[in-house]
């Protein structure tokens, strides 16, 4: 088990009719890494997330989690095995308070309300939402909603956390907070896979970057190498970004 990679994506293909949303994608993620998945809209980033977390069945290919095949597992069982995720469009339980939302996640590994509540408060303390624990989900700002969703995912006690655009639409200050939170999560020993468009965040947090375009992996490497790669610039970043980095 210790020799296996944390996550292995082996030739994953997801086809919707004639459209290949993911086409033979392979890469590995090691324990305590932060791997970012970037690419233009429609590149297949969210589809890949959905395949890994069991929301879509992959058309072909295999996904291994610490050597175990999870390709055909249900989403809830993948979560129970230790892979948690957030959504691009924030999903919280709107008639529950912040604390109850996180507590519901904590129930997965703490069946009793009292213990789950204690776990939820611990998580909220860590994510910095504890002051707002009595608020209802819809009463929060976008940044806090995203933090809440991360808190819910953390409460399920994952080994891998997958964040789908947790930094989109944040102010610079909020962005700073989210980057620090992600680093803090890794400090706790978790592995992260992040879909992100905010390049400054990607550059700062990633150990490696996987670039998708039209469903295919076009490159993988350390952030600095990726942003200077001609194909990545052409497909996603644009000449302007390259010029800015070059200065």
């Amino acid at each position, binding site marked *: 088990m210790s020799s296996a990679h944390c996550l292995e994506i082996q030739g994953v293909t997801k086809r919707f009719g004639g459209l290949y949303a993911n086409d033979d994608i392979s890469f590995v993620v090691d324990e305590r890494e932060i791997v970012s998945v970037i690419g233009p809209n429609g590149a297949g980033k969210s589809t890949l997330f959905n395949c890994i977390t*069991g*929301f879509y069945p992959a058309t072909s290919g295999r996904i291994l989690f610490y050597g175990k095949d999870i390709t055909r597992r*249900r989403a*809830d069982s993948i979560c129970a095995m230790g892979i*948690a995720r957030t959504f691009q469009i924030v999903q919280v339980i709107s008639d529950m308070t912040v604390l109850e939302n996180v507590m519901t996640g904590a129930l997965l590994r703490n069946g009793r309300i009292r213990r789950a509540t204690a776990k939820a408060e611990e998580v909220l303390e860590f994510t910095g939402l504890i002051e707002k624990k009595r608020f209802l989900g819809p009463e929060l700002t976008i940044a806090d909603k995203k933090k809440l969703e991360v808190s819910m*995912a953390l409460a*399920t006690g994952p080994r891998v956390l997958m964040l789908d655009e947790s930094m989109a639409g944040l102010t610079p200050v909020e962005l700073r907070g989210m980057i620090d939170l992600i680093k803090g999560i890794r400090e706790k020993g978790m592995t992260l896979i992040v879909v992100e468009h905010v390049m400054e965040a990607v550059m700062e947090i990633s150990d490696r970057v996987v670039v998708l375009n039209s469903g295919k992996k076009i490159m993988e490497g350390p952030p600095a190498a990726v942003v200077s790669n001609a194909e990545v610039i052409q497909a996603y970043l644009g000449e302007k970004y390259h010029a800015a980095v070059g200065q």
Partner: protein
Amino acid sequence: MQRLTTKQTSSAAVALILLIAFPLLTENSTAHHVMILFFMFAMMGVAWNIMGGYAGMFSFGQVAFFGIGAYTSSFLLITYQVNPWIGMIAGGLVAALVAAAIGYPCSNLRGHYFAIATIAFGEIVRTHFNNWKLVGGAEGLSLPMLDGGFRDFMFHSSKLPYYYIILAFLLIAIIVCYTISTTKMGYYFRAIKEGHDVARVLGINVAWYRLVAIMVSAFLTAMAGTFYAQYVLYIDPESVMLLSVSIQLVLICMLGGAGSVMGPVIGAAILIPLSEVTRIWLGHKGTGIDMLIYGFLITLISVYQPKGVWGLISAIGKGKG
């Protein structure tokens, strides 16, 4: 969902004492009858609420479980002389099994589609029983006269035992619902109500918890069905399997407050006496006046208080305290 406060516990105790004392204060058997119907519908409302209000599965076919409960115990009593109490448990189990059989293929249906499927289910069951000779078809079943007494679940001289039995049933349903709402299952139901995706990322087996909600709800509803059969001693598909009863249950919960333990009880406390009284006073003057008042109340509530009367009460309670 917090633990009960002392204030809530004491007001519940006072309400219970009043309900226990009520039939001793008046001999009026119509009043007793209305209260019995109130308890019965409140019980079914609480049962509906477990799957509808908490788990978000709007059932418009709930009456099928009521009918299945009534038919199972009555058929067993008539054909095999099975004691109605045992028949009631059997009816609950049959209803829960049918619920599972229908719930499993529907486990991916959400919102309106689930509601449509349940309407179809309720109507299919009614049509089937109307044509099923073994259980009397459209003629229904008349229950045999037993000696009477608690053991026989049959009382000839007074409505009082029925009153206390159905009150006890209602309490059982409330305790089941309260227990669910304050434990893991209740929170999981509420997550599922919000959306299947958010529930699944929290590690919730959506299909399984939906099935549990439907089966518990069906079992309790079937208990009410057996009670009705033992109370009226005659059942047919047009009395125990009517779509309008299913709709009435939904209305009771929406009016009282879906997704709260006591909401359906409040809803039934308003709608059942209202419907009985308007039917007795106004029914002969041309049909539908009771329905008009009904419709008006529902409109009022859904426009001004979407969380139902119970939402209003708890908002006032919070404002004071």
